[in-house]
C-alpha cells in the first residue's frame, strides 16, 4: 500500500513543486492551500505523514494544524517546512523538551532543502 502524504502550503508554486517531488518518491499526495482546507481534509482523511507550511492565513497556521493532527492521530509524523528563518530571523527548532511540549511537529525543514534530503527525512520518519 502506498503511503499518503498531506502537503499544505498557501504558495501554489511551492505546493506544486513539493507535490511533484513527493510523488516521484512513490507516495500518494493530498494537497491543501490553507489551514482551513487542511482541517476539512483531516476530518475524513488519515494521512501517513504531513508537511505543513508555517505561515498561512494565520502566522501560526502550521502549529495549529500540528496540534489538531496530533490530537486526532498522535502517531502521524509532521514536518514543518518553512522559509521563515531566513526571511524573518526568527528561529525555531524542536531539540529542547520545552519546545517539544508545545510544538507538536517532529521536524523542521528549510524550504530550500534538496529533493534527496527531503526524501531521506520522509523515509526516516516513516521508518522505511
Amino acid at each position, binding site marked *: 500500500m502506498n503511503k499518503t502524504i498531506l502537503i499544505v502550503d498557501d*504558495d501554489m508554486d*511551492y505546493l*506544486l513543486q513539493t507535490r511533484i517531488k513527493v510523488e516521484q518518491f512513490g507516495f500518494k499526495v493530498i494537497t491543501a*492551500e490553507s489551514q482551513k482546507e487542511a482541517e476539512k481534509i483531516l476530518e475524513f482523511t488519515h494521512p501517513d505523514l504531513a508537511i505543513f507550511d508555517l505561515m498561512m492565513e494565520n502566522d501560526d497556521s502550521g502549529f495549529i494544524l500540528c496540534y489538531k493532527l496530533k490530537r486526532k492521530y498522535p502517531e502521524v509524523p509532521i514536518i514543518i517546512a518553512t522559509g521563515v528563518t*531566513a526571511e524573518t530571523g526568527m528561529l525555531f*527548532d524542536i531539540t529542547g523538551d520545552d519546545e517539544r511540549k508545545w510544538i507538536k511537529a517532529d521536524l523542521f525543514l528549510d*524550504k530550500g532543502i534538496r529533493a534527496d534530503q527531503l526524501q531521506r527525512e520522509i523515509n526516516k520518519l516513516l521508518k522505511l
Partner: protein
Amino acid sequence: MASFKVLVVDDEPGIRMGTRRILQNFKVDYPFMDEHIDFEILEAATGEDAIEIIDVQLPDIVLLDNKLPGIQGIQVLEYIRNKQYDIVVVMITSYASLELAVKATRDGAYDFIPKPFTPQELRASIENITKQLFLRRMTQTLNNEGKHIRFQFMSVLSHELKAPLNAIEGYLRMIGEKQMGDNVDSYKEMIDRSLERVKGMRQLILDMLDLTRLKSGKPMHKLQQIVLSDIARISKDTVRPFAIQKDVDVYITCPQNIVMNFDPGEMEIILNNLLSNAVKYNHEGGRVDCQITSEKDVVNISVSDTGIGMSDEEQLHIFEDFVRVRNTKTRQITGTGLGLSIVKKIVDSYGGKITLQSFPDKGSTFNITLPREFSFEQVN
C-alpha cells in the same frame, strides 16, 4: 565597486582553494543597488588562525567548518558573537551533523552549507548572505538617519523579489533534473507558472519605478493642461488586450471638454491601475464602468467593476505598500500589491481623495476626487 571579505576556515586545503576559485570572479548585485559587490578571499586552516585574522581583518562573511584540528568551529562562532562583530557566519557542515547546525544557528550562525557542496550551492548561499548583509548594513545606516520606514519597505521588497525567484528556481531545477522524464510537454505547467512569475516580477519592477519617483522627496509633477478624455482613451487601449482575454467589457464615460492641470503620466498611472485592477479582479463576462465628471473646482473619477469584491477586513489595508487580498479567488491572479498604493500616493500629492466601496462577489467601486487647478502652493 564594493568588496566583501570572505574568510574560509577549513583544515582541508581543497575546500579553501575550491572556495577561492568559485568566488573570485563572482559578483552580486541588486536591482536597486548602484554597484556590484565582489569578494576578497581570506583563508585559515585552524580556528586559532581564524580568530587572529578576524581581529585584524574584520571579514564580512566567515565560512566555518566545525571540525577543525584545534578549537572547534562552534568556539570561533562564540568568539565572534561575544565580540559582537558584524560578521555573517555560515557553517560548512556535513548533513549528518544537523543537530550541530541547529545549535550553531541558535548561536548566531546565519546559514549552513552542507558538505560536499557544488559551486552553485556556494554561490547561491553567498549571494543570499551578501544581500542580507547589504540590507542589514543599510538598516543600520537608515536607522541612524531615522529612516526606519524606508528599510521596512526594502525588506518587504526583498521578500517580494525573492519569492518569484525561489519559485522559478525551483521549477528550473526540476526541469533540469528531468523529474518528469524526457517529454517537454510534461513540463508545461512548470514552464507556464515560471512565465507567470516572471511577468509578475516585471510588473513589480515597473511599479517600483513609479513608486521611486513618488517617494524621492517632493513630488515633481510635470503639470500641464490635460484633456481627460484623451488620457482615458489611452488607458482603455492599454487594458484592452487583457480585457478581451478575460471577456470583460470596459465602458468609459467622459465628456470631451474636461480639462485640468495635472501630470499626464501620473493620470495615466492612476487610470491604468484602476482599470487593470477592475479587469483583473473581475469575473469572466463581467463589466467595468469608468465615469469621469467635473464640477466647478474638482474632477471626479469613478471606476466600478462586477468582480470578486472585498470584505470589510480585506479593504482595511488595501492602499498600503505590498498589501494584496489573499484568498482562493485571488490565488491565480498575479499582482505586486503596489498599484493602489501608487494611485493613493499620487492622489494625496495633489491634495485629492480616494475612497472605496466594495462587497464580496458583487464588485468594487473606487472614487477619486482631484482639484481641477492644482498648484504647488496649495499642498504646501
